[in-house]
């Protein structure tokens, strides 16, 4: 009985796990497929190459476009910054002070926001001024007062006297018109 069991066991083990027919062909076909895909690496790298080229092109475009935008913004803000950064100091020798704008615009000192091409918000601020608010141009009366103060005291006195004389009411002497002598009747 044990011998029969061993024979049965051995014969059963001999037929254990029989694969379906055509296993070798399926294996070789799978290997051939893998070798084909492996033998043409350019197909795999072609996609990556195209993607890399596209990415580089986009990067270059955004870089150039962003630089252009930055230059435009810089050109727009530069005059404002110059105006705000170099306020005119009152000086008697300056004659063109009246040509300055009477009041600096509000946007001259405000931060200028612009959106860059990369989507992030950048803030371009004007340089910090030494005197705030920015000095304004003097009026004609103020300019005259500055000029007066700048003179020596005796000259000031003379100017004031002269001004006083100029502002004093005019005294007009009575007009004396001599009568016109009548025409000589006897001569008629």
């Amino acid at each position, binding site marked *: 009985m*044990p011998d029969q*069991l*061993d024979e*049965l*066991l*051995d*014969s*059963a*083990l*001999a*037929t*254990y*796990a*029989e*694969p*379906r027919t055509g*296993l*070798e062909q*399926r*294996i*070789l076909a*799978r*290997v051939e497929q*893998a*070798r084909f895909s492996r033998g043409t690496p350019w197909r795999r790298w072609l996609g990556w190459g195209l993607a890399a080229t596209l990415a580089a092109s986009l990067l270059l475009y955004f870089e150039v476009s962003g630089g252009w935008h930055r230059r435009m913004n810089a050109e727009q803000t530069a005059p404002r910054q110059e105006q705000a950064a170099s306020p005119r100091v009152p000086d008697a020798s300056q004659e063109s002070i009246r040509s300055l704008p009477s009041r600096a615009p509000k946007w001259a000192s405000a931060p200028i926001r612009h959106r860059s091409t990369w989507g992030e918000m950048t803030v371009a601020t004007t340089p910090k001024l030494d005197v705030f608010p920015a000095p304004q141009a003097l009026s004609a009366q103020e300019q005259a007062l500055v000029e007066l103060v700048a003179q020596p005291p005796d000259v000031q006195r003379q100017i004031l006297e002269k001004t006083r004389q100029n502002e004093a009411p005019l005294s007009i002497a009575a007009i004396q018109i001599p009568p016109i002598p009548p025409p000589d009747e006897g001569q008629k």
Partner: protein
Amino acid sequence: MTTDPDEEFTALVERQSRFVFRVAYAVLLNAHDAEDAVQETFLKLFRNRGWQQAGNERAFLARVAWRVAVDLRRRFPILPPDVAGRMEHPKPDPASPLPGPDETLAASNQHALVHTMIDTLPEDLRVPLVLSTFEELNSREIGQVLAIPEGTVRTRLLRARQMLRQKIETAQAQRQEVRRA
């Protein structure tokens, strides 16, 4: 003697594919998964050409196939043998009186019965049994494949055969009882 690598590989596939399939099947207990493991095994062999430097080709192939099958089973856990079933052979019912005594004793049914019993063995007993039976691997080579000592292989082979004998005797006793009833 072939010198073309492709011809050598083709010859290797024709020579050892069934062996590799049985190793994978002993681990996975499913014909479809075992075939996937076989294809994966030969794909690896094709890529690294490792079998050309191997001293013992069969032991080397068994080692690679066993590793691939174990890795495949980790990724896709197998169903129990009674649920997954065998793909090639119909699962017999030892207690069923329908086939009749003569048909029950037919070789195909007996083999199918033993196959099912092999499937129900623990894996640490089943794989050495499969490797030792028809693959002409000795205990030392099986130990190298499974990374276990040679004595452990012999012990497991002995235990596997004892368990199968007990199962077969139990099944035959049940059939005889059914026949008497």
